[in-house]
């Protein structure tokens, strides 16, 4: 489902003397349907960079990222927008929303974008919010003033509203209490069971042990630095 070959990434900092920083080379990774793969490596090793490239948020310098027949490294913006709408979900650590939009609508948005009718989309959103223990009194409020843990759960609810065939998870259990952590782990297990291909960053080691079939240490993709 997710197939990465010989992927490389460099940043050219034009306003800092044109410095060119090679951050990744020869990255390869395959995630099959129903499989969960953990990206590991010390902080700064390139886990987030790789996730962002898979999502089309960072441009690849070379190589291929094939997801359901589309090469994200070469795709047009329009193709990536469609991939994100239908195929590839991303639960990031941060919630970025228009202030004022009610929590329930934020969670329903991925379904509304797919043309699901408002009633069904909102019902699914409410079920997820209830499952993740967001009090009903908060559903009609914007999450911008919620606590970090609540925002994280709203983000997770949004990421699981549509059953994406491929999912990227960036520390999905960070800042969650044990009860909510358990709910999230079950959601991920359910996604695996229905055949989703999942790649993620899990600093929570017990969660990683329980969910992941394999680990890929991204340190192996770091370019050799000239001494």
């Amino acid at each position: 489902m997710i197939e990465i070959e010989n992927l490389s990434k460099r940043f050219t900092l034009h306003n800092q003397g044109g410095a060119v920083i090679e951050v990744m080379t020869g990255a390869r990774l395959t995630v099959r349907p129903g499989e969960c793969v953990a990206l590991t490596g010390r902080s700064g090793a390139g886990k987030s960079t790789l996730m962002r490239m898979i999502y089309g948020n960072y441009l690849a310098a070379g190589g291929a990222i094939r997801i359901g027949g589309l090469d994200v490294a070469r795709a047009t913006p329009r193709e990536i927008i469609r991939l994100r709408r239908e195929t590839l979900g991303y639960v990031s650590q941060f919630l970025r929303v228009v202030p004022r939009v009610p929590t329930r609508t934020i969670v329903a948005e991925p379904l509304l974008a797919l043309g699901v009718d408002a009633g069904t989309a909102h019902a699914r959103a409410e079920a997820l919010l209830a499952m993740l223990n967001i009090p009903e009194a908060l559903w009609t409020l914007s999450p911008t003033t919620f606590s970090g843990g609540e925002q994280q759960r709203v983000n997770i609810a949004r990421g699981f509203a549509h059953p994406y065939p491929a999912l990227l998870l960036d520390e999905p259990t960070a800042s969650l209490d044990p009860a909510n952590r358990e709910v999230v782990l079950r959601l991920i297990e359910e996604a695996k069971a229905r055949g989703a291909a999942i790649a993620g960053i899990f600093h929570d080691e017990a969660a990683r042990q329980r969910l992941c079939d394999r680990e890929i240490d991204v340190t192996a993709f770091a370019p050799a630095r000239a001494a």
Partner: protein
Amino acid sequence: MTAFDRTLTASADAPLLSVQDLTKRYGRRIGCERVSFDLWPGEVLGIVGESGSGKSTLLGCLAGHLAADEGQILYRGHDILAMSEPERRLLSRTEWAFVHQNPRDGLRMGVSAGGNVGERLMAIGARNYGAIRNAASDWLTKVEIDPGRIDDRPRAFSGGMQQRLQIARNLVTAPRLVFMDEPTGGLDVSVQARLLDLLRGLVRDMGLSVVIVTHDLAVARLLADRLMVMKDGRVIETGLTDQVLDDPQAAYTQLLVSSVLQV
């Protein structure tokens, strides 16, 4: 309206608007130069850049407010620049809409709120007073203006309300393509958020295609699917909105993105 039969469904596989090498000069100075892009149905294209970058000139040429010197604009396959003036006017009253930064440029300040909305319907042949008033009242509700104020003049409205009224006036004829010039420009931040939320909902529910000019990268991030970055009249970078903002490639875009104060 023969050339733009409404029963023709716009193909999702064909661009709604296709622009080739559009150029506008002011004497020897460049307004915009060799701009090309395609816009598909339901897509929001953001044009960003500093003042003087040519983004408003480009928007003016696209909407027919300014005469382009060279290039081609195809709308649903029809060559806009080769059209007669009456044909183009019909288009801007029906399938196109233009939201100005300053609501006073897009509204008739001496006419009631209901009149402002109803006028655009009358321009395309609506004659039944009751139906026009109902449509106007519906649209006031959609843009969150109390329909009880249908007979008030826009002068009595706040800036944010005037902007929402301008949007209602523009969208009442169910256009396909909307041009927006800094629509949140003159508004307080809290009022901006409300307008952004409203615009996002309308874009999604009506399947609108939008070309929006803004210098506000936060507005671009929340509204646009794709971005075009302009400098000195030229397009220097294009791409998916979050990719251009998070991994900008051109020197100027990197400077633009890094100059924004983080909150």
